[in-house]
């Protein structure tokens, strides 16, 4: 087993860790607009630019829509592009997220997950990126500032893979991760640059009949972003799905490669399980609350309860096989959702998990806990309550309430 590369421990919050990772990845263009709680990312990066520590062209765009546009256009011109946003800013980019994926531009974006208006709320929940789950971006959600740093680096390697060629969102919970100081082990810039390498471009056949790199280049003129009528559009969407399918494999590969480099891996890159192998009851969760859940699981294990946790790290593409395998023998499952889908049967993660397990022979009861909306704090005692509910459900096989609101004043 190779020795991991030399690393330095720095005190960084999630936003700073993201900014540092982007710096080390030698991004060519950053086009961004500030929004709480992502502001530290753009501010930190601006400092790097102002101090000449990077050669990045930094565009302070006049809106997030223009930020994503500029990143997309820069990426299609051959540049490595990065941006960050949250909440309303991400929502404003909505149109362009679909376009970026459709144009197969490997833009990487950090999302400091924050609640959507109305009412206005600047605190952390996952409704912003969950609302973009159909946009054709890879979604990776992190549990710590360390993982935020690691995942931004991995994101470029995933996005730029020629069989993926899709943009990647790295979600970190607003304030909980973005603004909380942590010890982060940081690689050297040279190590990171070597790890992700120069950006490779997929090839396309142009109207001149030439097979050339996908790039706006006067040497090889090509037309990007055409109108495709009903007789053509569908095939391009299928191609994006194929990119997603390939991402499942690629995310795991990059997770392993990064583990060799840094000594850190996150499950298999898609799901990260904790005490799940022999668990009778399990909670599925996305993001930083998994940290709190691990504490609760430890407590319960001490008491002899066979509790386990599945942290869903990659939400898109959905790791169906890994979910089925990991949750195969669990008697009762609770899925946590830090967002809502109004009018639906539970939240986004709940729907996806339940759907993934629907065809399995084992059909454990699966319940939903919607929690932490608008940054509402979720205490270990409340999470313990979830496990206690599961104990009851596992015993009786009966579900009192399928969709629950944890921490809501009813």
């Amino acid at each position: 087993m190779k020795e991991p590369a030399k690393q330095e421990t720095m005190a960084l919050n999630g936003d700073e860790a993201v900014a540092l990772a982007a710096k080390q990845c030698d991004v060519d263009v950053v086009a961004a607009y500030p929004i709480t709680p992502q502001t530290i990312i753009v501010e930190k990066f601006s400092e790097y630019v102002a101090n000449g520590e990077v050669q990045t062209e930094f565009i302070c765009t006049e809106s997030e829509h223009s930020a994503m546009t500029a990143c997309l256009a820069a990426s299609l011109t051959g540049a490595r592009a990065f941006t960050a946003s949250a909440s309303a800013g991400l929502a404003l980019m909505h149109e362009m997220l679909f376009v970026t994926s459709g144009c197969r531009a490997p833009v990487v974006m950090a999302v400091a997950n924050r609640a959507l208006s109305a009412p206005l709320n600047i605190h952390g929940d996952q409704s912003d990126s969950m609302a973009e789950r159909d946009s054709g971006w890879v979604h990776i959600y992190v549990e710590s500032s360390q993982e935020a740093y690691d995942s931004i680096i991995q994101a470029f390697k995933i996005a730029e893979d020629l069989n993926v060629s899709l943009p990647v969102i790295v979600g970190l919970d607003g304030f909980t991760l973005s603004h909380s100081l942590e010890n982060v082990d940081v690689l050297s810039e040279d190590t990171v640059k070597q790890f992700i390498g120069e950006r490779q471009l997929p090839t396309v056949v142009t109207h001149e009949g030439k097979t050339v790199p996908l790039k706006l280049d006067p040497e090889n003129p090509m037309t990007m972003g055409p109108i495709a009528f009903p007789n053509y559009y569908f095939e391009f969407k299928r191609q994006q799905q194929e990119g997603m399918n390939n991402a499942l494999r690629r995310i795991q590969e990059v997770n392993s490669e990064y583990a060799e480099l840094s000594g850190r891996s996150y499950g298999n890159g898609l799901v990260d399980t904790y005490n799940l192998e022999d668990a009778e009851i399990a909670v599925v969760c996305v993001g930083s609350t998994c940290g709190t859940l691990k504490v609760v699981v430890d407590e319960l294990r001490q008491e002899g309860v066979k509790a386990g946790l599945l942290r869903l790290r990659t939400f898109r593409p959905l790791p169906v096989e890994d979910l089925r395998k990991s949750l195969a023998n669990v008697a009762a499952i609770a899925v946590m959702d830090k967002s809502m889908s109004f009018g639906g049967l539970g939240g986004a993660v709940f729907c996806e998990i339940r759907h993934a397990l629907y065809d399995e022979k084992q059909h454990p009861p699966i319940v939903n806990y919607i929690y932490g909306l608008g940054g509402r704090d979720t205490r270990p005692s409340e999470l313990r309550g979830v496990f206690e509910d599961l104990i009851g459900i596992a015993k009786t096989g009966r579900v009192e309430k399928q969709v629950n609101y944890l921490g809501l004043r009813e």
Partner: protein
Amino acid sequence: MTTQTTQEWNFTAKDIATQPDLFLSGHRACAGCGPATVLRLIMKATRGPTIVTEATGCMEVVSSIYPYTSWNLPWLHTAFENAAANASGIDAALKAMSKKGKLKEHIDVIALAGDGGTYDIGLQALSGAVERGHDFLFVLYDNEGYMNTGIQRSGGTPLGAATTTTPAGKVIPGKLEKKKPITEIMLAHDMPYVATAIPYYWKDMLVKVRKGLEVEGPAFLHVFAPCPRGWRSEPGKTLEYSKLAVETCVFPVWEAVNGKRQLSTPSKLIALAPQKKRPVTDYLAGQGRFRHLFTPQNQHIIDEMQRLIDERWQKLTQKCEPA
């Protein structure tokens, strides 16, 4: 393509005609399309490697119907409101790649948009890109309406025009709002180059395109491009209407280098010989979108249009440098 600067660039129709088209035949624009002529000619003024980015609109749709393309240079379309933001991203990418030694030559960036993608939905991105000083030329092909989606009114539609969202109805006779003075807005950005042109005076237009490309920083060119379909005018008269627009001062031609404005020759001739200025009715006649104005109860609108034209012309001549 010639890399000569505008000062040295001495071209004839034959020079332009022998240059290969970068905007190719086979596009699906309507017969007699003004913007198509404008775009075809503008692409003749490129001076070297060029990247074009375009907003959603007539010219974008007719020239990029998958799998066909009419563009013989690198071309990008992403969405409606962001031609200037596209240009910003491309400009930044080119600068970054140059800095890192990955790009040796200079590449010009041209952003194209119709009046929809400029006056209205596109204004924010345009204003932002200009304020940030990106190096690109923004060409507005103004056919005075959202023509691609079916002739709806835009901020560039003139007072009195009938469009599908400002129809000439029994109670409201067409658009009641004035044409937004987009070039005044762009001038207020303190930008290096702002100009207006019409396709009839193609030589003037090409020189202005070239000047816009040469400027280091943002340049804005407002080109008047009649739309026979949307204006309900004869397809053969497209160029004639652009000339009439200058002769009636509906659309004067001028240029402003670092804010210093000068009338271009066709409008200068009218400023020097005011008797040459034709009444607006000469321009309105034959355009179906103004037909409803030629009734006694709507005469006041024509009068208001004339008054507005005179007022704007007066202000313009005052602001321009003397001949």
